[in-house]
């Protein structure tokens, strides 16, 4: 059966996204610098908070989700900076931009790579966090919220990191741009996670949960519509 032009475009789009994911993973598996630095950074935050806040169980439950999201957000920002910095080496971004691909596939490839990197770190940190804080983190609802929060944060982060990479002070510019824009995602994710941990019903947590989904959808739209323009020059 003949493939339609639409099928061909979609196939090429995913081929180029997968090529970028393959390349990012190949480099990371060889260098092991990104995952190790994110992991060490996350563990340091968790340990510092564990020993700095010598709290009783109820107080610990109150601050636990905040510390968890601080860890994830900082680790993700570190990861975003490094995955995008990779494309500054030998002007490889120009090499990619010269190729005949839909440039949104660069965003999709970079986003999926970073999302997987951050999710792996979260999967490592959560059991350690569970041991140190004695907080029941392994509820399916909480995992869904963490994935949705990570999705939104890394998506906005990938978009803004491409703007920041063209600037001289990339490492400073990214958090300055990212934190205000991603605040709605972080607030909804923290509120939602807190409610899940306190055993709230679906009605009580539906507000922040819906908000989190809406923000994710809005940012997907913004990213797809703007990336082509942001990546140029």
């Amino acid at each position: 059966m003949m493939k339609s032009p639409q099928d061909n475009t979609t196939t090429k789009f995913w081929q180029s996204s997968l090529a970028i994911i393959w390349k990012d993973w190949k480099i990371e598996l060889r260098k092991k610098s990104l995952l190790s630095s994110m992991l060490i950074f996350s563990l340091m935050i968790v340990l510092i908070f564990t020993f700095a806040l010598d709290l009783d169980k109820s107080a610990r439950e109150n601050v636990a989700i905040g510390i968890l999201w601080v860890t994830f957000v900082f680790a993700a920002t570190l990861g975003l900076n490094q995955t995008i910095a990779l494309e500054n080496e030998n002007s490889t971004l120009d090499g990619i931009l010269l190729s005949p691909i839909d440039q949104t596939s660069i965003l999709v490839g970079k986003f999926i790579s970073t999302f997987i990197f951050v999710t792996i770190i979260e999967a490592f940190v959560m059991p350690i966090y569970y041991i140190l804080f004695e907080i029941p983190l392994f509820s399916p609802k909480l995992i869904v919220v963490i994935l949705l929060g990570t999705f939104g944060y890394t998506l906005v982060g990938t978009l803004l990191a491409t703007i920041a990479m063209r600037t001289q002070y990339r490492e400073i510019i990214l958090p300055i741009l990212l934190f205000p824009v991603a605040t709605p995602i972080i607030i909804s994710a923290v509120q939602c996670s807190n409610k899940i941990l306190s055993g709230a019903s679906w009605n009580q947590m539906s507000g922040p949960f819906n908000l989190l989904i809406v923000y994710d959808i809005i940012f997907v739209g913004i990213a797809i519509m703007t990336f082509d323009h942001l990546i140029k020059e």
Partner: protein
Amino acid sequence: MINLQNVSKSFGLTFVLNDINLKISTGQFTTIIGPNGSGKTTLLRIISGLLTPNTGTVTINGINTATHAYDTRHLIGVISHQSFLYENLTAFENLLFYARLYGINDINSRIKFVLDTVNLSKHQNILISTFSHGMKQKLSIARSILHNPPIILCDEPYTGLDQNSSDNLTRLLQSITYSGNTVVMVTHNLNKVIKLSDQLIVLHKGKIETNEPIADKTLETLIKEYDEITTR
């Protein structure tokens, strides 16, 4: 054919290119020379589609690079002093990555062919972080011809090359032109201009000062003319 009409480009308040009109014929080896800051690299980046001009149009074989960038990118290969290569991938993996982006069929045989062309087949499984500058430049050339483009744009490709690598690059560029491809090269090396070019463009302060065939120009006359233009 590459055609630029009324192309201007500024960065902020600085005008880099001012009302450039230029036609480069198919199969021609054109060299662009000019002092630092004259707009050579910007001109090449505009032709390649990496930069968009503020005004004017660029067409390649009649296709507008701004409105149909996807179609014109197939036609261009770029050799730059930046290699566009990943240090932590092997030579083969770098080419494999770009071959996938270009949607090349029969990837393995094409990679083998371009690696043979630049004499790097023996080093295909070595990380390029261990390569010398000359080897990286060879691989960069292999990357640029991977999709067999009819137009090659070279931005100071001789930067940092030793005599041997430089001669190899010259031979390769000559063979590219002999096979009917168009080459546009930006360089400071006037010797290479005389040796390789059919057409010479002198760019100064964002304007084309000279656009003429090399014909039987000697290096001495070229140096004299160039000095006259750039000291105006």
